[in-house]
């Protein structure tokens, strides 16, 4: 079956296919606004760690709107397997673009956002485990769930949801394994931990 974007609203008024096709036919930007309203909690949840004040958010909102207006006009909806995943990628890219732009043009430090999020995956590990015997040995000390989560999240850059679907974990299990693994690795690696994990 053809994969489609499905932006059904909470009220059930918006059909995804109809919304996208209607927007592509009419160019009515109110449909894009309806999409942003529908996903406002998710957008805020994704973006709030990147920004620290209201001006940042307003800039991001404008950038995201422009990006959606341009992208939705030309996107081939048949090529998108998951509408939510596609949208999240677009939101994250818009946030990072906005962050880089503000950082460049304003030329001042943006606090934790810049320090931690200047790169798309700031908490990725610096080395592959097999490249370093110390890290490799430390990972062997973790239990299976912890090791899986650390490897998938930091070395393979998988999302929590991917791990849940691949290994049958719950969201809280992934969080728990990750947090416990980091605590144990911090103990095992001691001073070397910061070398591998820029958390």
């Amino acid at each position, binding site marked *: 079956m053809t994969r489609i974007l499905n932006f059904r609203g909470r009220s059930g008024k918006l059909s995804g296919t109809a919304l996208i096709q209607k927007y592509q036919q009419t160019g009515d930007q109110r449909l894009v606004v309806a999409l942003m309203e529908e996903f406002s909690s998710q957008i805020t949840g994704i973006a709030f760690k990147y920004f620290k004040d209201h001006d940042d958010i307003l800039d991001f909102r404008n950038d995201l709107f422009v990006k959606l207006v341009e992208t939705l006009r030309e996107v081939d909806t048949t090529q998108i397997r998951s509408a939510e995943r596609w949208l999240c990628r677009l939101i994250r890219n818009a946030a990072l673009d906005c962050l880089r732009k503000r950082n460049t043009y304003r030329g001042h430090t943006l606090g934790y956002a810049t320090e931690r999020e200047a790169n798309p995956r700031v908490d990725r590990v610096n080395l592959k485990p097999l490249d370093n015997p110390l890290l490799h040995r430390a990972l062997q000390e973790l239990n299976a769930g912890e090791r899986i989560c650390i490897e998938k999240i930091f070395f393979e850059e998988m999302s*929590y949801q991917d791990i849940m679907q691949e290994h049958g974990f719950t969201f809280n299990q992934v969080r728990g394994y990750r947090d416990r693994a980091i605590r144990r690795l911090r103990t095992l690696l001691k001073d070397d931990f910061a070398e591998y994990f820029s958390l």
Partner: protein
Amino acid sequence: MENQSTLIYPHLDLETMFDFLEGKLSPGRTAEVEAHVLECAACATALEEMDRAGGGTPENRQQAQEFKAVFTADLDKMARPPKAGWNWNRVIQVAAIALLVLNLGWAGFNLSRSLSPGFSPYPYSNDRAGSNNISEAESDLQTALFAYRDHHYGAAATQLQALPDDPATIERKLFYLGNALLALNRNAEAVVPLRKLVDNPDYELYAQSAQHYLGIAYLRLSQTDGPGE
């Protein structure tokens, strides 16, 4: 897809996501959220990013709520509604392009034709510079000649007879009047203008042709033994 997608709606709101991260939801509600984020990439991604940013703390919750309020405030004012009816900008653009093309075409036509001797793009004018100052007698003569070329000899004859004897048009007037009358078989009347052309030494342009048609007129008159109308 429609049926599958309806399973993951409605999406989680911000409060629910923070309650989930802080462990404040009931076990039943927690299981519902877990089931939702297993299917919904948008909510799962939002929860993951919030968790990576420090999880559910009162400070994060307050900041996220403020950001959402800012984000959604006057959101509807961002949209520009589609234009109704004609897109006048487009119409004006098309009209301007059409006008430009026509002008260029006309200029090119004139340029190429102006290289040919004896051509003028303006009717009834022998002036190659393109003057539009056509005399009234010339205009009347051309009107009469249109009728002549359309084989309306009666109308042509009437119009030609009504023309004044203007020096610029007198020769053509007499010649075509004679021919028109000859075509109407009004041979005796045809003799008069043709005779004037032949007898006047100043009229050189049509004199030879007039002599030919005058001969025809006399021939017909001799055959009918009188004016054959």
